[in-house]
Protein backbone atom coordinates (compact mmCIF):
# COMPACT_ATOMS: atom_id res chain seq x y z
CA UNK A 1 0.00 0.00 0.00
CA UNK A 2 1.43 3.36 -1.04
CA UNK A 3 0.98 6.29 1.34
CA UNK A 4 -2.16 8.15 0.27
CA UNK A 5 -2.57 11.96 0.36
CA UNK A 6 -6.04 11.71 1.90
CA UNK A 7 -8.42 14.64 1.81
CA UNK A 8 -11.46 12.78 3.10
CA UNK A 9 -12.18 9.20 4.13
CA UNK A 10 -15.86 8.54 4.87
CA UNK A 11 -18.37 5.90 5.72
CA UNK A 12 -21.63 7.59 4.66
CA UNK A 13 -24.59 5.74 6.09
CA UNK A 14 -28.23 6.19 5.14
CA UNK A 15 -30.90 5.24 7.66
CA UNK A 16 -33.98 4.96 5.45
CA UNK A 17 -36.30 3.94 8.30
CA UNK A 18 -35.83 7.42 9.82
CA UNK A 19 -36.46 9.33 6.58
CA UNK A 20 -39.47 11.64 6.21
CA UNK A 21 -42.00 10.49 3.57
CA UNK A 22 -40.34 12.47 0.80
CA UNK A 23 -36.66 13.43 0.44
CA UNK A 24 -37.12 16.27 -2.00
CA UNK A 25 -38.37 18.80 0.52
CA UNK A 26 -36.40 21.08 2.68
CA UNK A 27 -36.19 24.69 3.78
CA UNK A 28 -33.63 25.45 1.07
CA UNK A 29 -30.19 26.85 1.66
CA UNK A 30 -29.84 28.86 4.83
CA UNK A 31 -28.23 31.83 3.20
Amino acid at each position, binding site marked *: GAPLPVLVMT*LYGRVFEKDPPRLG*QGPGKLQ
Partner: protein
Amino acid sequence: LDSFTAAVYEHAVLLPNATESPASREEALLLMNRNLDVLEKATKLAARQGAHIIVTPEDGIYGWVFTRESIYPYLEDIPAPEVNWIPCRDPQRFGYTPVQERLSCLAKDSSIYVVANIGDKKPCNSSDPLCPPDGRYQYNTDVVFDSEGRLVARYHKYNLFAPEIQFDFPKDSEVVTFDTPFGKFGIFTCFDIFSHDPAVVVVQDFEVDSVLYPTAWYNTLPLLSAVPFHSAWARAMRVNLLAANTHNTRMHMTGSGIYSPEAVKVYHYDMETESGQLLLSELRCRPRSQPTYPAAVDWSAYARSVKPFLSEQTHFPGLIYFDEFTFTKLKGKTGNYTVCQKDLCCHLSYKMSEKRVDEVYALGAFDGLHTVEGQYYLQICTLLKCQTTDLRTCGEPVGSAFTTFEEFSLSGTFGTSYVFPQIILSGSQLAPERHYEVSRDGRLQSRG
Protein backbone atom coordinates in the same frame (compact mmCIF):
# COMPACT_ATOMS: atom_id res chain seq x y z
CA LEU B 1 -23.39 -11.58 -23.88
CA ASP B 2 -21.05 -11.80 -20.91
CA SER B 3 -19.95 -8.23 -21.17
CA PHE B 4 -21.04 -5.07 -22.91
CA THR B 5 -19.54 -1.70 -23.71
CA ALA B 6 -21.14 1.17 -21.79
CA ALA B 7 -20.84 4.83 -22.72
CA VAL B 8 -21.54 7.92 -20.70
CA TYR B 9 -21.39 11.48 -21.96
CA GLU B 10 -20.72 14.43 -19.67
CA HIS B 11 -22.45 17.26 -21.52
CA ALA B 12 -21.86 20.99 -21.29
CA VAL B 13 -25.52 21.91 -21.71
CA LEU B 14 -26.37 24.86 -23.94
CA LEU B 15 -28.75 26.82 -21.76
CA PRO B 16 -31.66 28.96 -22.99
CA ASN B 17 -31.19 32.71 -22.77
CA ALA B 18 -33.01 34.25 -19.86
CA THR B 19 -36.17 35.84 -21.30
CA GLU B 20 -39.13 37.62 -19.75
CA SER B 21 -41.72 35.64 -21.61
CA PRO B 22 -41.65 31.88 -22.26
CA ALA B 23 -39.95 30.81 -25.48
CA SER B 24 -42.10 29.80 -28.39
CA ARG B 25 -42.29 26.11 -29.28
CA GLU B 26 -40.05 26.80 -32.26
CA GLU B 27 -37.44 28.59 -30.15
CA ALA B 28 -37.56 25.77 -27.59
CA LEU B 29 -37.00 23.15 -30.30
CA LEU B 30 -34.13 25.20 -31.73
CA LEU B 31 -32.36 25.15 -28.37
CA MET B 32 -33.06 21.47 -27.82
CA ASN B 33 -31.78 20.59 -31.27
CA ARG B 34 -28.53 22.44 -30.59
CA ASN B 35 -28.02 20.21 -27.54
CA LEU B 36 -29.13 17.16 -29.50
CA ASP B 37 -26.54 18.00 -32.17
CA VAL B 38 -23.83 17.61 -29.53
CA LEU B 39 -25.37 14.45 -28.06
CA GLU B 40 -25.72 13.01 -31.55
CA LYS B 41 -22.00 13.45 -32.21
CA ALA B 42 -21.15 11.76 -28.93
CA THR B 43 -23.59 8.92 -29.57
CA LYS B 44 -22.26 8.21 -33.06
CA LEU B 45 -18.70 8.23 -31.77
CA ALA B 46 -19.66 5.84 -28.97
CA ALA B 47 -21.44 3.53 -31.40
CA ARG B 48 -18.42 3.52 -33.70
CA GLN B 49 -16.37 2.38 -30.72
CA GLY B 50 -18.75 -0.51 -30.13
CA ALA B 51 -20.86 0.89 -27.31
CA HIS B 52 -24.16 -0.92 -26.70
CA ILE B 53 -25.70 1.90 -24.67
CA ILE B 54 -25.03 5.57 -23.97
CA VAL B 55 -26.31 7.64 -21.06
CA THR B 56 -26.65 11.40 -21.31
CA PRO B 57 -27.22 13.78 -18.40
CA GLU B 58 -30.29 15.02 -16.57
CA ASP B 59 -31.53 18.34 -18.01
CA GLY B 60 -29.16 17.65 -20.89
CA ILE B 61 -31.62 18.71 -23.60
CA TYR B 62 -32.75 22.09 -22.26
CA GLY B 63 -31.05 22.93 -18.97
CA TRP B 64 -32.43 23.57 -15.49
CA VAL B 65 -33.37 27.23 -15.02
CA PHE B 66 -37.14 27.29 -15.56
CA THR B 67 -40.47 28.09 -14.04
CA ARG B 68 -43.55 25.93 -14.62
CA GLU B 69 -44.58 28.27 -17.42
CA SER B 70 -41.24 28.71 -19.14
CA ILE B 71 -40.49 24.99 -19.42
CA TYR B 72 -43.84 24.18 -20.98
CA PRO B 73 -42.77 24.74 -24.64
CA TYR B 74 -39.97 22.18 -24.12
CA LEU B 75 -42.27 19.39 -22.98
CA GLU B 76 -43.74 16.55 -25.01
CA ASP B 77 -46.31 13.86 -24.32
CA ILE B 78 -44.24 10.75 -23.56
CA PRO B 79 -46.35 7.56 -23.62
CA ALA B 80 -45.73 4.51 -21.47
CA PRO B 81 -43.43 1.98 -23.20
CA GLU B 82 -46.30 -0.55 -23.31
CA VAL B 83 -47.55 1.21 -26.44
CA ASN B 84 -44.65 -0.40 -28.34
CA TRP B 85 -43.71 2.74 -30.22
CA ILE B 86 -40.78 3.52 -32.49
CA PRO B 87 -41.02 7.30 -32.92
CA CYS B 88 -38.50 7.25 -35.77
CA ARG B 89 -40.88 5.09 -37.78
CA ASP B 90 -44.18 6.56 -36.62
CA PRO B 91 -43.45 10.14 -35.52
CA GLN B 92 -47.04 11.40 -35.57
CA ARG B 93 -48.60 8.67 -33.40
CA PHE B 94 -48.55 10.69 -30.19
CA GLY B 95 -48.79 14.23 -31.43
CA TYR B 96 -45.94 16.68 -31.71
CA THR B 97 -42.88 14.77 -30.45
CA PRO B 98 -39.81 15.96 -32.37
CA VAL B 99 -37.36 15.29 -29.55
CA GLN B 100 -38.50 11.72 -29.07
CA GLU B 101 -38.42 11.22 -32.84
CA ARG B 102 -34.85 12.48 -33.04
CA LEU B 103 -33.64 10.40 -30.08
CA SER B 104 -35.34 7.31 -31.53
CA CYS B 105 -33.74 7.82 -34.95
CA LEU B 106 -30.38 8.39 -33.32
CA ALA B 107 -30.69 5.07 -31.49
CA LYS B 108 -31.99 3.26 -34.58
CA ASP B 109 -29.52 4.68 -37.06
CA SER B 110 -26.54 4.01 -34.81
CA SER B 111 -27.88 0.71 -33.42
CA ILE B 112 -27.30 1.74 -29.84
CA TYR B 113 -29.49 2.16 -26.78
CA VAL B 114 -29.87 5.88 -26.05
CA VAL B 115 -30.74 7.22 -22.59
CA ALA B 116 -31.79 10.84 -22.25
CA ASN B 117 -33.60 13.15 -19.84
CA ILE B 118 -36.48 15.21 -21.24
CA GLY B 119 -39.83 16.59 -20.03
CA ASP B 120 -43.22 14.90 -20.02
CA LYS B 121 -46.55 16.73 -19.92
CA LYS B 122 -49.84 15.09 -19.01
CA PRO B 123 -53.17 16.97 -19.10
CA CYS B 124 -55.50 16.72 -16.09
CA ASN B 125 -58.70 18.41 -14.92
CA SER B 126 -60.72 19.26 -11.85
CA SER B 127 -61.90 15.68 -11.45
CA ASP B 128 -58.35 15.07 -10.15
CA PRO B 129 -58.07 16.89 -6.83
CA LEU B 130 -54.29 17.00 -7.19
CA CYS B 131 -54.38 18.47 -10.68
CA PRO B 132 -52.29 21.68 -10.72
CA PRO B 133 -54.19 24.91 -11.51
CA ASP B 134 -52.76 25.08 -15.03
CA GLY B 135 -54.42 21.77 -15.91
CA ARG B 136 -51.35 19.65 -16.48
CA TYR B 137 -48.67 17.59 -14.75
CA GLN B 138 -45.06 18.19 -15.77
CA TYR B 139 -42.49 15.50 -15.03
CA ASN B 140 -38.69 15.34 -15.08
CA THR B 141 -38.42 12.21 -17.26
CA ASP B 142 -35.77 9.72 -18.34
CA VAL B 143 -36.39 7.92 -21.60
CA VAL B 144 -34.61 4.94 -23.14
CA PHE B 145 -34.76 3.97 -26.82
CA ASP B 146 -33.41 0.56 -27.83
CA SER B 147 -31.18 -0.12 -30.83
CA GLU B 148 -34.26 -0.26 -33.07
CA GLY B 149 -35.42 3.12 -31.83
CA ARG B 150 -38.24 1.69 -29.70
CA LEU B 151 -39.21 3.49 -26.51
CA VAL B 152 -38.45 0.82 -23.88
CA ALA B 153 -38.39 2.83 -20.65
CA ARG B 154 -39.88 6.01 -19.22
CA TYR B 155 -39.09 7.10 -15.66
CA HIS B 156 -40.58 10.09 -13.87
CA LYS B 157 -38.15 11.43 -11.28
CA TYR B 158 -39.65 10.92 -7.83
CA ASN B 159 -37.30 12.78 -5.56
CA LEU B 160 -37.23 16.25 -7.08
CA PHE B 161 -34.57 18.56 -5.71
CA ALA B 162 -35.87 21.56 -3.80
CA PRO B 163 -35.11 24.09 -6.61
CA GLU B 164 -36.89 22.00 -9.28
CA ILE B 165 -40.08 24.06 -9.14
CA GLN B 166 -40.82 23.47 -12.83
CA PHE B 167 -41.82 19.84 -12.25
CA ASP B 168 -44.41 17.87 -10.31
CA PHE B 169 -43.86 14.85 -8.09
CA PRO B 170 -45.34 11.62 -9.45
CA LYS B 171 -48.04 10.33 -7.07
CA ASP B 172 -45.98 7.22 -6.41
CA SER B 173 -42.36 6.20 -6.81
CA GLU B 174 -41.97 4.30 -10.11
CA VAL B 175 -39.62 1.34 -10.31
CA VAL B 176 -38.60 1.19 -13.96
CA THR B 177 -36.60 -1.74 -15.28
CA PHE B 178 -36.12 -3.31 -18.69
CA ASP B 179 -34.29 -6.32 -20.07
CA THR B 180 -31.65 -6.28 -22.78
CA PRO B 181 -29.34 -8.89 -24.32
CA PHE B 182 -26.68 -7.46 -22.00
CA GLY B 183 -28.47 -7.61 -18.69
CA LYS B 184 -31.33 -6.14 -16.71
CA PHE B 185 -31.34 -2.38 -16.28
CA GLY B 186 -32.90 0.03 -13.84
CA ILE B 187 -33.05 3.78 -14.10
CA PHE B 188 -33.50 6.78 -11.83
CA THR B 189 -32.33 10.38 -11.72
CA CYS B 190 -29.92 12.46 -9.71
CA PHE B 191 -31.32 13.10 -6.23
CA ASP B 192 -33.14 9.74 -6.31
CA ILE B 193 -29.81 8.14 -5.43
CA PHE B 194 -30.31 9.20 -1.81
CA SER B 195 -33.58 7.33 -1.67
CA HIS B 196 -34.87 3.91 -0.72
CA ASP B 197 -37.69 4.25 -3.30
CA PRO B 198 -36.68 3.84 -6.10
CA ALA B 199 -32.90 3.51 -5.71
CA VAL B 200 -32.63 0.66 -3.21
CA VAL B 201 -35.80 -1.06 -4.40
CA VAL B 202 -34.66 -1.26 -8.03
CA VAL B 203 -31.47 -3.00 -6.96
CA GLN B 204 -32.62 -5.19 -4.09
CA ASP B 205 -36.15 -6.14 -5.03
CA PHE B 206 -35.86 -6.06 -8.83
CA GLU B 207 -32.26 -7.31 -8.89
CA VAL B 208 -31.07 -5.22 -11.82
CA ASP B 209 -27.51 -5.71 -13.03
CA SER B 210 -26.88 -2.11 -14.06
CA VAL B 211 -28.41 1.27 -13.25
CA LEU B 212 -28.65 4.12 -15.75
CA TYR B 213 -28.18 7.39 -13.95
CA PRO B 214 -28.67 10.73 -15.64
CA THR B 215 -27.70 13.48 -13.17
CA ALA B 216 -27.10 17.21 -12.89
CA TRP B 217 -24.96 17.15 -9.78
CA TYR B 218 -23.05 20.08 -8.39
CA ASN B 219 -20.14 19.03 -6.23
CA THR B 220 -20.17 19.92 -2.57
CA LEU B 221 -16.94 19.06 -0.78
CA PRO B 222 -16.11 17.27 1.37
CA LEU B 223 -18.80 14.59 1.29
CA LEU B 224 -21.07 15.17 -1.69
CA SER B 225 -18.92 15.19 -4.79
CA ALA B 226 -20.32 13.29 -7.73
CA VAL B 227 -17.61 10.76 -8.53
CA PRO B 228 -16.80 9.73 -4.94
CA PHE B 229 -20.45 9.53 -3.94
CA HIS B 230 -21.71 7.72 -7.03
CA SER B 231 -18.83 5.23 -7.09
CA ALA B 232 -19.39 4.58 -3.36
CA TRP B 233 -23.06 3.92 -4.03
CA ALA B 234 -22.24 1.43 -6.82
CA ARG B 235 -19.73 -0.29 -4.53
CA ALA B 236 -22.11 -0.57 -1.61
CA MET B 237 -25.17 -1.53 -3.69
CA ARG B 238 -23.01 -3.89 -5.74
CA VAL B 239 -24.34 -3.00 -9.20
CA ASN B 240 -22.96 -1.33 -12.30
CA LEU B 241 -23.76 2.39 -12.35
CA LEU B 242 -23.56 4.49 -15.53
CA ALA B 243 -23.52 8.08 -14.29
CA ALA B 244 -23.74 10.92 -16.80
CA ASN B 245 -23.41 14.39 -15.31
CA THR B 246 -23.84 17.86 -16.73
CA HIS B 247 -20.68 19.97 -17.17
CA ASN B 248 -20.65 23.53 -15.91
CA THR B 249 -17.56 24.61 -13.99
CA ARG B 250 -19.18 27.83 -12.76
CA MET B 251 -21.75 25.69 -10.95
CA HIS B 252 -19.18 23.05 -9.94
CA MET B 253 -21.00 20.52 -12.09
CA THR B 254 -18.61 17.83 -13.25
CA GLY B 255 -18.10 14.20 -12.41
CA SER B 256 -19.27 11.34 -14.59
CA GLY B 257 -18.25 7.75 -14.48
CA ILE B 258 -18.81 4.10 -15.23
CA TYR B 259 -18.65 2.16 -11.98
CA SER B 260 -18.77 -1.58 -11.34
CA PRO B 261 -19.34 -3.22 -7.96
CA GLU B 262 -15.65 -4.12 -7.75
CA ALA B 263 -14.04 -0.96 -9.07
CA VAL B 264 -14.29 2.41 -10.74
CA LYS B 265 -13.84 1.55 -14.43
CA VAL B 266 -13.46 5.10 -15.70
CA TYR B 267 -14.36 8.54 -14.41
CA HIS B 268 -14.10 12.13 -15.50
CA TYR B 269 -13.61 15.19 -13.33
CA ASP B 270 -12.76 18.49 -15.01
CA MET B 271 -12.87 21.90 -13.40
CA GLU B 272 -10.55 23.41 -15.99
CA THR B 273 -12.34 23.35 -19.35
CA GLU B 274 -15.90 23.90 -20.58
CA SER B 275 -15.84 20.80 -22.77
CA GLY B 276 -18.01 17.71 -22.65
CA GLN B 277 -16.44 14.28 -22.41
CA LEU B 278 -17.31 10.83 -23.67
CA LEU B 279 -16.39 7.88 -21.46
CA LEU B 280 -16.46 4.23 -22.46
CA SER B 281 -15.80 1.05 -20.57
CA GLU B 282 -16.55 -2.62 -20.71
CA LEU B 283 -18.79 -4.00 -17.99
CA ARG B 284 -19.97 -7.44 -16.95
CA CYS B 285 -23.58 -8.00 -17.95
CA ARG B 286 -24.31 -9.89 -14.73
CA PRO B 287 -21.90 -8.76 -11.98
CA ARG B 288 -23.56 -11.04 -9.39
CA SER B 289 -22.37 -14.11 -11.30
CA GLN B 290 -18.73 -13.02 -11.19
CA PRO B 291 -16.24 -14.65 -8.79
CA THR B 292 -15.00 -11.16 -8.01
CA TYR B 293 -18.47 -10.01 -6.88
CA PRO B 294 -17.92 -8.31 -3.52
CA ALA B 295 -19.29 -10.08 -0.45
CA ALA B 296 -21.95 -8.34 1.62
CA VAL B 297 -20.49 -6.20 4.42
CA ASP B 298 -21.68 -6.15 8.01
CA TRP B 299 -20.84 -2.51 8.55
CA SER B 300 -20.99 -2.47 12.33
CA ALA B 301 -19.52 -5.90 13.14
CA TYR B 302 -15.95 -4.76 13.81
CA ALA B 303 -16.87 -1.46 15.50
CA ARG B 304 -19.24 -3.21 17.89
CA SER B 305 -16.58 -5.80 18.70
CA VAL B 306 -13.94 -3.32 19.95
CA LYS B 307 -13.83 -1.14 23.02
CA PRO B 308 -13.83 2.60 22.28
CA PHE B 309 -10.36 4.08 22.16
CA LEU B 310 -10.38 6.35 25.21
CA SER B 311 -7.17 8.26 24.50
CA GLU B 312 -6.77 11.84 25.70
CA GLN B 313 -9.05 13.73 23.31
CA THR B 314 -11.21 16.84 23.33
CA HIS B 315 -14.29 17.07 21.16
CA PHE B 316 -15.50 20.10 19.25
CA PRO B 317 -18.43 20.79 16.93
CA GLY B 318 -18.09 21.43 13.20
CA LEU B 319 -20.49 21.84 10.29
CA ILE B 320 -20.42 19.78 7.13
CA TYR B 321 -23.14 20.86 4.62
CA PHE B 322 -25.23 22.27 7.50
CA ASP B 323 -24.98 19.09 9.62
CA GLU B 324 -23.30 19.50 13.02
CA PHE B 325 -20.63 16.85 13.46
CA THR B 326 -18.75 15.98 16.63
CA PHE B 327 -15.03 16.17 15.86
CA THR B 328 -11.80 15.27 17.58
CA LYS B 329 -8.36 16.42 16.37
CA LEU B 330 -5.70 13.86 15.40
CA LYS B 331 -2.75 14.89 17.51
CA GLY B 332 0.05 12.52 16.56
CA LYS B 333 1.69 10.85 13.62
CA THR B 334 -0.09 7.66 14.63
CA GLY B 335 -2.93 6.82 16.99
CA ASN B 336 -6.35 5.36 17.78
CA TYR B 337 -9.40 7.57 18.23
CA THR B 338 -13.10 7.08 18.92
CA VAL B 339 -15.70 9.80 18.56
CA CYS B 340 -19.40 9.28 19.18
CA GLN B 341 -22.62 11.14 18.47
CA LYS B 342 -25.94 9.69 19.67
CA ASP B 343 -25.96 5.97 18.77
CA LEU B 344 -22.99 6.18 16.40
CA CYS B 345 -19.39 5.63 17.50
CA CYS B 346 -16.62 5.91 14.92
CA HIS B 347 -13.22 4.23 15.42
CA LEU B 348 -10.04 5.24 13.63
CA SER B 349 -6.56 3.77 13.70
CA TYR B 350 -3.97 5.46 11.51
CA LYS B 351 -0.33 6.07 10.77
CA MET B 352 0.85 9.09 8.80
CA SER B 353 4.12 9.18 6.91
CA GLU B 354 4.85 12.38 8.78
CA LYS B 355 2.91 14.78 11.03
CA ARG B 356 2.96 18.17 9.28
CA VAL B 357 2.56 21.26 11.44
CA ASP B 358 0.73 23.11 8.69
CA GLU B 359 -2.02 20.51 8.18
CA VAL B 360 -4.65 19.37 10.69
CA TYR B 361 -6.91 16.33 10.45
CA ALA B 362 -10.00 15.46 12.47
CA LEU B 363 -12.23 12.44 12.98
CA GLY B 364 -15.95 13.29 12.91
CA ALA B 365 -19.26 11.59 13.63
CA PHE B 366 -22.82 12.63 12.67
CA ASP B 367 -26.04 10.83 13.56
CA GLY B 368 -29.09 12.84 12.54
CA LEU B 369 -31.57 14.19 10.01
CA HIS B 370 -30.10 16.31 7.28
CA THR B 371 -32.62 19.06 6.47
CA VAL B 372 -31.14 21.33 3.83
CA GLU B 373 -32.03 20.90 0.12
CA GLY B 374 -33.82 17.73 1.09
CA GLN B 375 -34.47 15.74 4.24
CA TYR B 376 -32.79 12.40 4.84
CA TYR B 377 -31.33 10.61 7.87
CA LEU B 378 -27.56 10.12 7.98
CA GLN B 379 -25.00 8.28 10.08
CA ILE B 380 -21.52 9.35 9.00
CA CYS B 381 -17.99 8.62 10.16
CA THR B 382 -15.38 10.77 8.46
CA LEU B 383 -11.68 11.49 8.63
CA LEU B 384 -10.94 14.78 6.93
CA LYS B 385 -8.36 17.46 6.53
CA CYS B 386 -9.39 20.79 8.01
CA GLN B 387 -9.21 23.80 5.72
CA THR B 388 -6.57 25.44 7.91
CA THR B 389 -4.96 24.67 11.25
CA ASP B 390 -7.88 26.50 12.87
CA LEU B 391 -10.24 23.80 14.12
CA ARG B 392 -13.20 26.00 13.26
CA THR B 393 -12.50 25.27 9.59
CA CYS B 394 -12.94 21.51 9.97
CA GLY B 395 -15.69 20.54 7.52
CA GLU B 396 -15.00 23.35 5.08
CA PRO B 397 -14.15 22.39 1.48
CA VAL B 398 -10.51 21.39 1.01
CA GLY B 399 -8.86 20.68 -2.33
CA SER B 400 -5.31 19.59 -1.58
CA ALA B 401 -3.27 17.78 1.05
CA PHE B 402 0.39 16.89 1.52
CA THR B 403 -0.04 14.61 4.54
CA THR B 404 0.01 10.96 3.46
CA PHE B 405 -1.42 8.03 5.37
CA GLU B 406 0.54 4.79 5.35
CA GLU B 407 -2.06 2.85 7.31
CA PHE B 408 -5.67 3.49 8.23
CA SER B 409 -8.77 1.70 9.46
CA LEU B 410 -12.13 3.49 9.80
CA SER B 411 -15.29 1.82 11.16
CA GLY B 412 -18.55 2.73 12.88
CA THR B 413 -21.39 1.23 14.95
CA PHE B 414 -23.90 1.87 12.17
CA GLY B 415 -27.55 1.09 12.65
CA THR B 416 -28.00 0.58 8.91
CA SER B 417 -26.70 -1.78 6.29
CA TYR B 418 -26.57 1.00 3.68
CA VAL B 419 -23.14 2.53 4.13
CA PHE B 420 -21.24 4.07 1.24
CA PRO B 421 -17.42 4.11 1.56
CA GLN B 422 -15.47 7.03 -0.01
CA ILE B 423 -11.80 7.94 -0.10
CA ILE B 424 -10.96 11.22 -1.79
CA LEU B 425 -7.32 12.07 -2.36
CA SER B 426 -5.69 15.41 -2.95
CA GLY B 427 -6.94 17.08 -6.12
CA SER B 428 -10.35 15.44 -5.72
CA GLN B 429 -9.02 12.21 -7.13
CA LEU B 430 -10.37 8.82 -6.17
CA ALA B 431 -8.16 6.39 -4.29
CA PRO B 432 -7.42 3.38 -6.51
CA GLU B 433 -8.91 0.16 -5.17
CA ARG B 434 -5.50 -1.50 -4.97
CA HIS B 435 -4.66 0.83 -2.07
CA TYR B 436 -7.61 0.11 0.17
CA GLU B 437 -10.31 -2.45 0.85
CA VAL B 438 -13.57 -2.86 2.71
CA SER B 439 -13.44 -5.83 5.06
CA ARG B 440 -16.52 -7.98 5.57
CA ASP B 441 -16.77 -6.78 9.17
CA GLY B 442 -17.03 -3.17 8.10
CA ARG B 443 -13.55 -1.62 8.11
CA LEU B 444 -12.50 0.79 5.40
CA GLN B 445 -8.81 0.08 5.61
CA SER B 446 -5.50 0.31 3.86
CA ARG B 447 -4.25 -2.80 2.14
CA GLY B 448 -1.16 -4.71 3.07
